[in-house]
């Protein structure tokens, strides 16, 4: 075995005598049918008005009725186009390159459309930056079909016409101009050259115009720091693939830190090649996705974090910095500084502290070591929010100086801590218009709601990074009577152009040079050496200043370090906000896919909660326990920041959470524009005072028990340990793979043979034709969850809702298991104490395992065993084996015995307990006509009572084969894909044909890191994993 570590997936398992954990391990089905309970209740049975005979009558009647009804086939109508668009062939998908830029997520993507309907988001391979969509971007296609979108312009809750709105707004604009009142445009970050130009023109016409950009989750500190260092309001870009050492001070760069999109580069450096991989050290309070992937993670409080950064600067530059840290943290900081110093320009330091000084110090460090990872020359422009300007606006509004307020895709009444102040100010504005997809908190308070189109119905352009442009084009005609913000501005300015023409004009005059507009639109991205007027000027300024400001900068950095070091340790608890990979800033809260996407770390769905360390939970008497049915329950807390209180926040014990800290995620607790099941959680923005991600907080226990919908206790694989393999880089480099990745053997005739050689079954011959394998590299997998959503979209996986998830009836075909591991086993700990009761080092090691566990992610889908246990037990042969390696599931044959799920050692089969489509009990996207438009027509929607599971995207492989047959050509490597492998931006998943000896997947399979999940069972899966290697001194 690789190590004698204990792996655990839930805090419950750590409790010494938890009967539940034991029971769950024993249970093959978590969801026991409560027959004993029901039949034991004599009273209820006797009182029931339905006798056994009645029951039989009903059964007889319904059976007869059903069979009678089945005799007559329905009449189906087929309605062809009157005039078929030239480029649409029914049944053939079209792809369009476009860009999502909703103010939080910026990504260049491809949209797959069928019969004119966008149904799937895919990678845009042409994109050099932000070409790897995250889970939210994959799910954004479903937002288009949101049945609660505003369907036209509204005034006072009534639908009105655009003409009416235009007349009123233009009149108000003119009167504001005449009276000298302010006209304010409060928008998301557009990073759009055309919009910028357009707003400049608008300002010229109406004189007193202010454009305020607003990010719900602010990067103001980082922007200010970058501006003061480099003279431009932007964010440095990082290429983590070049990094040898990464030190992160609470920067969740695999999550949404500074706009995210860094996982692909990071993963590249994590795959050991020629014995080398990057070393990643993370200092943080909450357990973040990034921390979970780190080689060394140091939990500490937010105030310690600032001191640690100051000290780090000191150690690196050989200066002494005041401020005190606990010894072990100080040691870790020193070690990190040493590593960075050794790596020199191949190191990088990043931080997510929302403090200008911290950001300045980090920029200074990277500049000093002249890090090759950081790119400040061509910075990122995807965050532009300006807190100062926003505060000024609120003040102006309250002073009655604002005549017209136009908001676009922002929801300050939900996302601002001082929403009440904004609301008071809004009442004093003469006329306000909210461009919004939803009638949300802000839009319901403005004079007009201007129905905005979804990005898949809009035109746009984005400059995500200096000189790197992307185009947004509509992929469907507007579903509703909507108009985009820019078109309205054009109209109000009196221009006859529409926004498409305007963008084209802007691009042709100042971006494209001699290059073709059509080509740029086709590619979706364009890299330019030219730049739009103003940024060039800013550049010129930036180039001139360095020498002049160089010394001032040194002084200011020293000040910044001193300020950081002088941070006073907090009294009581400190709260750190974070954004979940599923919910982001909350604008996609009405998206059931995202609501049901389990958080990679807590494995919880449909909720946000206060994460707390085990020690603090014990101290404050919070508890988490698992109910008989396997559902997780937790206490509530009253959370107070300043004078704002959230009354009932569920508490979740999070291993790895720093002591004296708690975490709370944004994006929940929204009430308007959401279907009822989606209105979950509490609004963390209410506590987000001063746009500071860390707050002093008071926490009290309040009564009540919260029911979580967690999938963490499900499918514990019966306590078999050899699921996740990992080792250290040192062992990997020095020892034989036999030692750290032994292949399973069994005893046959008193001799040990490889487990695959001993079998009861006759072997399938899969040497001819295609034989598909999927390779999953645990080193590259960051647990981001993009594959899960891509799988949902591709395979019409239903959403089951919170109460069903709680019963472990979630339908995810692909889950990402998360395992925690401590340094040693518990038994080992106890032995150690007995052996050396007075040694300090023993007690250090004895720290509770959940205090700072190491984390590993493992995507698990159907393993497509060549000797599949499920196939042998199906009484109706509904699951069978294909020559291409797929374990095939035939829904129309399945009678729902669930025997296969019972016999599956990987627990990847999912049972349809209900009909999840067209059923009011499951009021998600499959319950309305609009939401069903997202369904993939190539994959059947399963009915109640059948088993389903990963098909290895056979519809995609079959399509590839058919295309090749039609063209009469062999298939090239890389053509075969599954939804998950195509969605994996980190390259952790490689799919291909192992009978093609030149293919990438064959190379992956030959690696000495390769192992099969539970290989000793002899199931011979067609999915294989790569042992995780950690760059640590010791494992």
């Amino acid at each position, binding site marked *: 075995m690789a190590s004698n570590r204990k792996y655990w997936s839930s805090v419950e398992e750590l409790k010494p005598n938890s009967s539940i954990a034991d029971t769950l391990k024993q249970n093959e089905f978590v969801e026991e049918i409560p027959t004993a309970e029901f039949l034991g209740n004599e009273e209820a049975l006797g009182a029931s008005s339905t006798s056994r005979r009645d029951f039989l009558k009903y059964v007889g009647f319904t059976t007869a009725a059903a069979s009678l009804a*089945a*005799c007559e*086939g329905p*009449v*189906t*109508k*087929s*309605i*062809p*186009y*009157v*005039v*078929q668009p030239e480029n649409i*062939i*029914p*049944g*053939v998908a079209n792809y369009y390159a476009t860009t999502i830029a909703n103010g939080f997520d910026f990504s260049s993507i491809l949209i797959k459309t069928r019969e004119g309907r966008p149904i799937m988001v895919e990678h845009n391979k042409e994109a050099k930056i932000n070409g790897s969509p995250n889970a939210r971007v994959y799910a954004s296609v479903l937002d288009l079909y949101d049945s609660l979108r505003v369907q036209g312009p509204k005034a006072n809750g009534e639908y009105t016409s655009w003409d009416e709105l235009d007349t009123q707004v233009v009149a108000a604009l003119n009167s504001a101009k005449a009276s000298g009142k302010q006209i304010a445009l409060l928008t998301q970050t557009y990073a759009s050259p055309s919009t910028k130009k357009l707003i400049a023109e608008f300002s010229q016409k109406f004189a007193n115009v202010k454009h305020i950009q607003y990010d719900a989750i602010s990067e103001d500190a980082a922007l200010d720091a970058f501006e003061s260092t480099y003279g431009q309001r932007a964010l440095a870009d990082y290429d983590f693939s070049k990094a040898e050492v990464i030190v992160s001070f609470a920067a969740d760069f695999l999550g949404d830190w500074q706009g995210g999109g860094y996982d692909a580069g990071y993963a590249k450096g994590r795959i050991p090649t020629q014995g080398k991989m990057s070393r990643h050290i993370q200092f943080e309070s909450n357990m973040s996705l990034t921390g979970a992937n780190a080689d060394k993670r140091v939990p500490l409080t937010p105030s310690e974090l600032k001191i640690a950064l100051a000290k780090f600067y000191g150690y690196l530059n050989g200066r002494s910095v005041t401020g005190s840290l606990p010894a072990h943290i100080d040691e870790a900081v020193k070690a990190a500084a040493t590593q960075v110093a050794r790596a020199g320009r191949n190191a990088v330091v990043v931080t997510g502290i929302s403090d200008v000084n911290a950001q300045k110090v980090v920029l200074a460090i990277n500049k000093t070591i002249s890090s090759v990872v950081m790119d400040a020359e061509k910075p990122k422009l995807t965050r532009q929010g300006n807190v100062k300007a926003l505060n000024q606006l609120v003040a102006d509004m309250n002073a009655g100086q604002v005549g017209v307020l136009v908001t676009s895709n922002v929801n300050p009444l939900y996302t601002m801590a001082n929403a009440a102040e904004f609301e008071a100010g809004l009442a004093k504005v003469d006329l306000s218009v909210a461009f919004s997809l939803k009638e949300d908190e802000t839009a319901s308070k403005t004079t007009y709601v201007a129905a905005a189109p979804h990005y898949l119905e809009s035109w746009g352009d984005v400059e995500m990074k200096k000189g790197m442009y992307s185009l947004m084009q509509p992929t469907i005609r507007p579903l509703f009577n909507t108009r985009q913000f820019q078109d309205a501005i054009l109209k109000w300015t009196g221009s006859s152009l529409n926004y498409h023409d305007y963008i084209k004009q802007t691009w042709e005059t100042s971006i494209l040079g001699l290059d073709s507009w059509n080509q740029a639109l086709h590619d979706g991205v364009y890299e330019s050496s030219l730049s739009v007027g103003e940024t060039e000027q800013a550049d010129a300024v930036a180039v001139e200043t360095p020498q002049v400001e160089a010394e001032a900068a040194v002084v200011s950095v020293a000040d910044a370090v001193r300020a950081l070091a002088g941070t006073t340790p907090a009294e009581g608890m400190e709260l750190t906000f974070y954004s979940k990979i599923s919910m982001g800033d909350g604008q996609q809260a009405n998206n059931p896919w995202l609501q049901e996407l389990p958080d990679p770390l807590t494995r919880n769905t449909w909720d946000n909660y206060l994460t707390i360390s085990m020690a603090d939970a014990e101290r404050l008497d919070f508890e988490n326990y698992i109910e008989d049915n396997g559902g997780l329950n937790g206490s509530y807390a009253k959370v107070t920041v300043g004078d704002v209180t959230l009354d009932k926040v569920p508490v979740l014990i999070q291993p790895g959470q720093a002591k004296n800290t708690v975490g709370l995620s944004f994006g929940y607790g929204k009430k308007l524009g959401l279907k009822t099941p989606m209105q979950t959680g509490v609004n963390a923005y209410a506590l987000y005072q001063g746009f500071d991600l860390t707050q002093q907080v008071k926490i009290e226990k309040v009564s009540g028990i919260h029911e979580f919908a967690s999938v963490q206790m499900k499918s514990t694989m019966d306590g078999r340990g050899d699921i996740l393999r990992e080792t250290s880089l040192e062992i990997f480099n020095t020892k034989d793979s036999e030692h750290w990745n032994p292949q399973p053997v069994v005893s046959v005739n008193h001799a040990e043979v490889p487990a695959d050689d001993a079998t009861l079954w006759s072997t399938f*011959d899969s*040497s*001819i*034709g295609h034989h598909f394998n999927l390779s999953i590299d645990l080193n590259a997998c960051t647990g981001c969850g993009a594959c899960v959503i891509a799988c949902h979209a591709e395979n019409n996986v239903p959403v089951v809702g919170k109460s069903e998830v709680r019963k472990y009836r979630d339908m995810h075909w692909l889950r990402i298991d998360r395992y925690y591991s401590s340094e040693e086993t518990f038994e080992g700990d106890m032995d150690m104490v007995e052996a050396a009761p007075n040694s300090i080092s023993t007690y250090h090691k004895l720290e509770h395992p959940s205090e700072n566990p190491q984390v590993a992610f493992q995507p698990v889908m159907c393993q497509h065993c060549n000797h599949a246990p499920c196939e042998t037990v199906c009484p109706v042969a509904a699951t*069978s084996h*294909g*020559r*291409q390696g*797929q374990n*095939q*599931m*035939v*829904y*129309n*044959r399945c009678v729902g015995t669930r025997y296969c799920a019972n016999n599956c050692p990987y627990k990847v089969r999912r049972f349809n307990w209900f009909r999840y489509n067209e059923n009011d009990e499951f009021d998600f996207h499959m319950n309305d006509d609009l939401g069903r438009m997202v369904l993939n027509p*190539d*994959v*059947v*929607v399963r009915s109640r009572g059948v088993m389903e599971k990963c*098909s290895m995207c*056979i*519809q995609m492989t*079959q399509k590839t*084969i*058919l295309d*090749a*047959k*039609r*063209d*009469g*050509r*062999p*298939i090239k490597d890389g053509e075969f894909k599954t939804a998950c492998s195509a969605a994996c931006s980190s390259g952790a998943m490689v799919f291909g044909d192992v009978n093609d000896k030149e293919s990438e997947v064959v190379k992956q399979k030959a690696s000495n890191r390769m192992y099969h999940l539970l290989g000793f069972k002899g199931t011979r899966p067609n999915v294989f994993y790569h042992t995780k290697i950690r760059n640590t001194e010791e494992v």
Partner: protein
Amino acid sequence: MCTDLKNGYIQYIVYIRANFMIENTYSNMKKMIRPNSMTRILGIGLALLLSFSSSLFAQDQPEADPAAGKTLFNTYCAACHHLDRRMTGPALRGVGDKFEREWLHAWIKNSQALIKSGDEEAVRIWEEYKPAVMTPFPQLSEQDLDDIIAYTMEVEEEPAATDVAATGAAGSGGSSSGINGDIVLGALILVFGVLVVMLFLVNKTLRKIAEANGVEVKTPEKTKPLWRAFVQNQFLVIVTVILLLLGSAYYAFGYMMQIGVDQGYEPVQPIHFSHKIHAGDNGIDCKYCHSSARTSQTSGIPSLNVCMNCHQSIPEVSESTATAEYSKEFYDGEIAKLYKAVGWDVSTQSYTGESQPVKWVRIHDLPDFVYFNHSQHVSVAGIACQVCHGEVQEMEILHQHAPLTMGWCIQCHQDTNVKMEGNEYYTKIHEELAKKYGVDQLTAAQMGGMECAKCHY
């Protein structure tokens, strides 16, 4: 009979999709002639000859041949012109009277040149019909042009009226004979009834006479009724019950296996579209209209603009298309339905913009859990449409030919060899599989075409 007659001299027009050339298909015409109508054909031929000769005498230039002109007209002009109806271009009957011969020649050879030269007439016509540019025909000789003009000068024939009358007569004749049959049947029943009553009365009278005469009427001896004998024989009862059970099981099984199988389904469609006329009589390739069968999973129901490719210039069917069952008026009415749906105004030859999609009743409807791909079968395997859809070119009303059951699919996959020649995709797999099974030709099943998830996902 009269339909055959019409087939004798009405032209069939075939649109060839590549270039929209119009050809005269005499071969088609010949096929339709039946021996028993030969005499009529001869008679009509004589009539035609007479009319030709009369026109011969009427012409100034004796060499102009209207028959040749007709062929030329149908080849070159009929795509845009009709003798009596405005189409893309004007109606042409009597065009020789309206313009000078030289002017007409110049116009046909290159109308645009004539317009540019500033000719008054030419410019007037251009103004009326622009932007439709008439194709120049420099390849036509003077003789050809004269022939065409001669053809346009022919007096309109009026077979339609007599034909309709004939059809009507035939129709009413058919229906009246139906009524006659009923009457005869009724009369017969009445006669039989009277006979039965009479027999009964005779019997009664005879019995009365016998009674009156004191003759004793024998009553038959009471025997055991048959049913009682049957009931008492247990063996027979058991055997019968078993047979009944087996029989009913057989029929129940047969009935249940038919559930959901719609073989022969022939619904009434919103527009009476005859595949026989289009694919059969006119020989239009299936994939001209169902073009996506080549590249897509669905064969696609053609959009209405595809119909208009031809029907823009075919607003009515020819006389010979009408059958006893469906008259010309009926077919023309169906074309009018198409125009209504697509929003085509025949009088102005333009689209009104008011369209409404046609809601066809779907005939071939596989369940959602089956994935079938047309292009796999049509483009890759090269299977003719008729293999699954039957002789569509002979169906006046389309019906479902195949049962579309899984057994039917599998049967074909087991029997059919995969067409691999010349397809590089198959080169390697063919070599390997041929070696494995020791055969030269591989069936779809041997290629893995019987695996569940090849069709169910």
